[in-house]
């Protein structure tokens, strides 16, 4: 069994989508516990690539293909996971109003998915009211806000306030090039991360 789990991890790190899917199916047929496949093979692989990305040893293209392979593997795995095991939690993610930068947010989505979260991506240039609506509709475990401009970043405290009016206990994570830990604290956010891999780590930490 260790062999197949290792092979799955390797296929993800190398971004081999078809191979990942095939190996996951093979493992399932061989009777390997689906949770084990997820937690002992797939997630550690994403963790590995994410960590290397953080250290500057891997670049965005490698992260993207690994995330795609992970997704492909999940397609095979998901139907076999019990309802409660499907994910670590739900995250609603969007870029704030006036801001059309999408790449950072999309990478955060990929890394969150890679860490086992379900993500609803509500896009870019998202009005504050739309964040509130999406929060109401999905009741996520975490709301993630991305901002790439020092001007649009000023929307963050506004969104946080509006969402907290809906649910005072809402967990909110923020990030984007101009955002700092200090700004996140001042805005009342629960978490900040400087990159996509750390974002996934932070989300796990927030949900304890």
């Amino acid at each position, binding site marked *: 069994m260790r062999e197949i789990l290792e092979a799955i991890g390797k296929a993800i790190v190398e*971004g081999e989508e078809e191979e990942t899917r095939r190996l996951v199916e093979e493992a399932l047929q061989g009777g390997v516990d689906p949770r084990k496949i997820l937690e002992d093979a797939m997630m550690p692989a994403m963790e590995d690539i994410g960590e290397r990305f953080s250290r*500057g040893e891997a*670049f*965005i*293209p*490698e992260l*993207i*293909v690994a995330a*795609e392979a992970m997704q492909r593997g999940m397609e095979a795995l998901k139907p076999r996971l019990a309802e409660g095991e499907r994910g670590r939690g739900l995250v609603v993610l969007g870029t704030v109003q*006036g*801001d*059309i*930068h*999408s*790449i*950072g947010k*999309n*990478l955060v989505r990929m890394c969150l998915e890679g860490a086992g979260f379900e993500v609803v991506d509500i896009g*870019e*240039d998202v009005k504050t009211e739309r964040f509130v609506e999406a929060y109401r509709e999905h009741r996520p475990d975490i709301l993630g806000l991305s901002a790439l*401009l*020092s*001007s*649009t970043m000023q929307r963050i405290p506004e969104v946080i306030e509006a969402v907290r009016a809906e649910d005072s206990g809402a967990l909110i994570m923020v990030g984007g*090039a*101009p955002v700092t830990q200090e700004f996140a604290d001042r805005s009342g956010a629960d978490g900040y991360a*400087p*990159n996509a891999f750390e974002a996934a780590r932070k989300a796990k930490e927030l949900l304890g």
Partner: protein
Amino acid sequence: MTGKERMLTAFDRREPDRVPVWEMAFNEESIIKLGKFYTDDLPPMKFAQQMTMEEKVKLLNTLFTVARELELDGITSIGLLGTEPVDDEHVKDGWGRILRVSEEGEATAVGGPISDPSDLRGLKAYHPQPTDFLMLMASVGNLGDGVAQVLVQPGPFRESWSLLGSMEKLLYHYVKNPGFVKDLAQVATDYILEVVDMAADNGADIIALDGDLAFNQTTLMSPAQYEEYVFPYHQQITAHAHRRGLLIFKHSDGNMWPIMDGIVDAGFDGFHPVQPQCMDIGEVKRKYGDRLCILGNIDCTYLLPFGSEEEVEESVRETIRVAAPGGGYVISSSNSIHPGCKPENYIAMVRAARKYGVYPIDVEG
């Protein structure tokens, strides 16, 4: 010296009479806000794509007035590719790319004519039209030969990802489909070479090759991927620009350190904008000042939007002290005068450049 002579001298890495002042871009809102200091004849506050022809002409004239009043040494024109509206937020250009427009700045491609490598064969290439160069022509007509005429054109990386409608898709294919990525870059490059020809024919002096290759952390692709998928196309473009008697520099925000040698080897004459959050201009000057003209570095993330005029002056003084001695420096913001920048701060930046930028530089540390 004329503005143009100043810019060309800086590109030659010699000292002009004073540090040239130039900007890569002003958004519509920024032009109008700056214009208010000098004229009442302003267009309504809208995106250029939504303006009538008459309003567009007024916007351009406002920009030229600002350039003249502030005695800018160079002016940047963009290609005015015709677009047709799709809905309130989107327009479509001649390649069939869907662009999302935004109040806070330039548009981005969100959909392209190519979604799969197999689409490339059927792609109908767009060829630059004379009307795409109307801004350049108007600028040459209005400001004449006294200022350097810069034309900004997205590079092969940006053109490629725009044709796919997303940068992530292109980066995915960097790993998965190297052949496709190269063919696509060549399609983009062939188009860019045509643009370079028409820029030369219409009075441009300098090409600004746009298209970011980096972000805060590092480059968007690995140095090896840059070497393989971008560098050869950069080489073709710089060689062609030089053949046509033009100078050409690379624009990229972010931390470009991992591929700076490549930028020099690809034949660029300069590098813009040395984003201060990611790169130290003193270090760039030390390592590349003998081979590249350096442009930019005045912070448009915090300083120009939120700083005081005194802080702007101090930053200009310090940047000139570090980057200007010996020549080879053109002052500008660290990206553009975007809608978040205070117009007063931009004017303060230009004034400070005149105050401290006289050669020989005499600014104490």
